């Protein structure tokens, strides 16, 4: 079963010879598509979508292998954020029902333990802040130490914008990957966030990269950006060359400025998955929030066969996900092994 095969059939191919050549070159060289070709993939007719997904899957297997990296995430500080990211229910500037709450260390360790029990190799600790203050950094230090003492899992963090001292401190704690999403195309960012700039976010990413931590940087599709801006965003991410790109689809949250937005169409989401993979052939491309609403079970499967090679399992920060067992069963059915911890060290 698939969202795409009823329209197309197995013999679907890319009709534009130039685009077909460009995609073949990605497979051969591991160098991603240029922005114009990314846009061409994002605007393919439905009948060519299976061909794009198939090509993206081949690229993923050739340059990343068959494994899927599984991650769990938890919010260590929820809500009350001073920023105005228009998609986010954790901003203190909107009338969202989300209240501020902190997670204590024993609960943080338990969350890491439960994540590891799924077979996940990554555990990302997230805070809804502009950037970490001393209290949060101390909480991180204590939490990372406690997790490392009790749970065999890689620890990532997402704490907003960092100073150089904070970057150095996270490295010293043993945080191996840092997430900071650019969220959307540079040209569209001011429509989504007004309390800080795309460039400020980029500065943090630059420091993270120079520190030796792995860079995790993605965004959210469906914020009102044009298809051309989706291509722009993929090209900008490709320039950054992050180790991981988490791909979210807007899950409209009550009380936010985007609370009444329409979720991304499933086929547009699949076009985006193929396009982002073909733009970023060697990157970990992760299913993040919103896939349950945008893609459902069938679309989730199509995306895994169309360029995705990582997923967040279990719940998100303020919303719930599929049962981890359902995702792991799907990977087993697709004969996609979960990446082992030894392969990540």
């Amino acid at each position, binding site marked *: 079963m698939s969202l795409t095969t009823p329209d197309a059939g197995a013999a679907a191919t890319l009709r534009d010879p130039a685009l077909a050549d460009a995609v073949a070159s990605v497979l051969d060289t591991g160098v991603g598509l240029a922005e114009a070709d990314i846009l061409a993939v994002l605007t393919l007719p439905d009948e060519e979508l299976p061909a794009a997904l198939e090509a993206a899957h081949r690229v993923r297997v050739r340059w990343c292998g068959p494994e899927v990296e599984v991650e769990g995430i*938890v919010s260590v500080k929820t809500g009350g954020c001073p920023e105005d990211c228009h998609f986010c229910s954790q901003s203190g500037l909107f009338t969202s029902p*989300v209240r501020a709450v902190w997670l204590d260390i024993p609960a943080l360790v338990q969350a890491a333990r*439960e994540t590891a*029990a799924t077979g996940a190799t990554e555990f990302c600790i997230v805070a809804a802040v502009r950037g970490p203050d001393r209290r949060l950094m101390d909480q991180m230090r204590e939490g990372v130490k406690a997790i490392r003492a009790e749970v065999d899992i890689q620890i990532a963090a997402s704490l907003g914008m960092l100073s150089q001292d904070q970057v150095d401190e996270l490295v010293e704690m043993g945080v191996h990957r840092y997430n900071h999403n650019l969220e959307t195309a540079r040209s569209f960012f001011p429509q989504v966030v007004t309390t800080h700039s795309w460039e400020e976010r980029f500065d943090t990413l630059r420091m993270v990269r120079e520190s030796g931590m792995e860079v995790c940087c993605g965004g959210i599709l469906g914020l009102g950006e044009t298809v051309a801006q989706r291509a722009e965003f993929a090209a900008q991410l490709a320039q950054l060359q992050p180790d991981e790109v988490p791909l979210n689809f807007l899950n409209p949250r009550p009380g936010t400025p985007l609370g009444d937005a329409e979720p991304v169409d499933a086929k547009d989401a699949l076009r985006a998955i193929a396009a982002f993979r073909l733009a970023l052939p060697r990157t970990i491309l992760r299913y993040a929030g919103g896939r349950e609403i945008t893609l459902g079970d069938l679309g989730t499967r199509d995306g895994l066969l169309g360029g995705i090679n990582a997923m967040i399992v279990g719940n*998100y920060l*303020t919303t*719930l996900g599929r049962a981890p067992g359902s995702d792991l069963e799907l990977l087993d059915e697709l004969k996609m092994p979960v990446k082992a911890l030894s392969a990540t060290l």
Partner: protein
Amino acid sequence: MTTAGTAGPTGTAGPTGPAGTAASAGPAGPTAPAAYCDRCGGELSTDTHAACRVARALEPPRFCPACRRRMKVQVLPAGWRAECVEHGEVRG
């Protein structure tokens, strides 16, 4: 692991039950009858809250169904817990 995608509170109707009742009767939770939707805080007597009921399959409760106070909610990888200052904590 707890099934994260079907996060009805332990021992209650869960997300397929009427919004506002799903989080009302957990072992450590509120015991007062549900009068409010636990997703939007609206009165249950004036609306079916059908959309809320569907949405709750992928969301924790946000409002106490007994008093409509906004609850402190912590989502965890394998569940959630929600606390009303007046009516206590519920887990799912």
